[in-house]
């Protein structure tokens, strides 16, 4: 299959079952809400090393937030429900509560919940209070600029992590440009995040290593410098490979993001677009590139 001059390889992305949560952060200004969101989603590229994967889903205008202030929607993913709760507690406590003027709200509907505000409240040292509006309880924690409002519990839901595409280009410049075009296109898809820097990862990994302590190591089959010494997946004229990893609240959202990304990345200078998998033995989801609607 080809889109213009770019070949879409007949393979599949192998994705995993995860659990996800949506956090709405608001603040007095767009800048402060962004600062809080960037802090919370920092060091959250991969569950392997960061215990969770998180990213900014999008900016919210005041009419889209619960308290009519500028906000940011964040998605956070981990391998199980309890881990999502722990990571939310750590990151909201250390990155959102600490940021001037912020408030923090649950952004999902669902029966499965984890406790966040009800744990963070103890920072209030007995001066905390709560307010209940309909079925939602909000904790008020006194802080030095007033008070931090945080929702008591956050909904969590089964999610999909590790959707991906790998862009193979003739040089660094056009591969970066294609990756940028792909991430911008994926940015319009709801319910997904791209957890790596600017959405792009250059250090794609394979499972295992010749060093016993390491669970993962560099994906040598996609390293252009190793074409001569390893069983490479790179065509002869490819000198750069970049991967985009997608985590989503639903498989549909991940598929939509991959579709949008492939369409946008298929540009002159991009020889192939492929995807990473582990032979289908590890992940619960197999997203075949040729089954995506790449015609539009």
């Amino acid at each position, binding site marked *: 299959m080809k889109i213009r001059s770019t070949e879409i390889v007949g393979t599949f992305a192998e994705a995993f079952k995860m659990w996800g949560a949506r956090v709405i952060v608001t603040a007095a200004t767009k800048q402060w809400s962004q600062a809080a969101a960037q802090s919370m989603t920092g060091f959250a590229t991969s569950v392997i090393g960061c215990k969770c994967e998180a990213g900014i889903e999008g900016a919210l205008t005041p009419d889209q937030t619960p*308290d009519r202030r500028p906000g940011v929607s964040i998605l956070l993913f981990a391998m199980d429900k309890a881990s999502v709760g722990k990571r939310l507690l750590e990151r909201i406590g250390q990155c959102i509560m600490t940021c001037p003027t912020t408030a923090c709200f649950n952004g999902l509907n669902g029966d499965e919940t984890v406790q966040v505000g009800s744990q963070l409240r103890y920072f209030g040292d007995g001066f905390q209070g709560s*307010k209940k509006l309909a079925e939602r309880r909000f904790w008020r924690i006194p802080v030095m600029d007033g008070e931090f409002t945080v929702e008591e519990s956050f909904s969590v839901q089964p999610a999909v992590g590790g959707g991906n595409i790998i862009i193979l280009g003739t040089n660094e410049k056009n591969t970066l440009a294609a990756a940028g075009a792909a991430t911008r296109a994926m940015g319009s898809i709801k319910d997904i995040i791209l957890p790596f820097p600017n959405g792009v990862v250059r250090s794609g990994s394979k499972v295992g290593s010749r060093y016993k302590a390491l669970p993962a190591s560099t994906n040598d089959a996609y390293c252009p410098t190793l074409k001569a010494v390893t069983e490479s997946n790179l065509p002869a004229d490819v000198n750069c490979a970049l991967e985009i990893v997608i985590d989503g609240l639903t498989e549909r959202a991940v598929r939509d993001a991959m579709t949008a990304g492939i369409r946008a990345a298929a540009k002159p200078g991009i020889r192939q677009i492929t995807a990473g998998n582990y032979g289908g033995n590890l992940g619960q989801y197999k997203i075949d590139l040729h089954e995506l609607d790449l015609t539009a």
Partner: protein
Amino acid sequence: MAIFLKQIATPDVPMEADNITPARFAGQTPAGVEKLAVMHGSEPRRIGDFFSVSGQFDGTINVEGDHLGRVKLIGAGMSRGVIQVDGDVGEHLGAAMSGGEIRVNGNATDWVGPEMSGGRIEIHGNAGHMVGSAYRGAAMGMTGGEIIIHGNARNEAGNAMRNGVIAIGGNSGDFTGVNMLSGSIFVLGELGIRTGAGMKRGSIVSMKEATLLPTFSYSCTYRPGYMTLYLLHLSQIFAVAEEYLEGSYKRYCGDSVELNRGEVLLYAG
């Protein structure tokens, strides 16, 4: 289709009609509803002696009359369904209710929603004393739910309330939130005197200046995070000026003769 109760006789003395609830009407025909008991003073009577009953019960009861002010305990203990009252209504409306909704197109006298634990009462006119309060000698008033008064409320609104929301579109009388344990009272108009006397926790909010007891101390002027959430919710019910949504509030802590963990928030512009 709702069931309709139209008042056809005026009680000579206050009447206790705690059978007017959706749970008691469920499965009843109009003839069956007419046979349900009421107390006319100390005399046992039937609903049909005072109301004509028509329609078919679908979860909603419509009550209409010019002398409903003498009918007490409508919706007492109700847990579901809707009661719509057209006219002024008597005491103990929705007492100890745990769910459902009561809407009154008219005024209510004293004891609206005393000791209620859930559900919603909306009065489109004024209310009397003791809205959402504890009964005399009881430790706790309302413990949940929502009472909305579009007009004014008289004294001791939220007396010893333990949770829930009381919102008053007009003014409230004296001792608003007296002995309050927690919960929220919003008064868009003016507060009477001795607001929050003896309160332990909870929030009393007013959009007007107020003279507070000397046992309340000013802390700061700020924008409470939860305020916009509540006012946006209330703005779906009655008009809430835009400046209140985004304004700052003066926070007074009290009552220092008790825990000093309560707050009175006064709109500061």
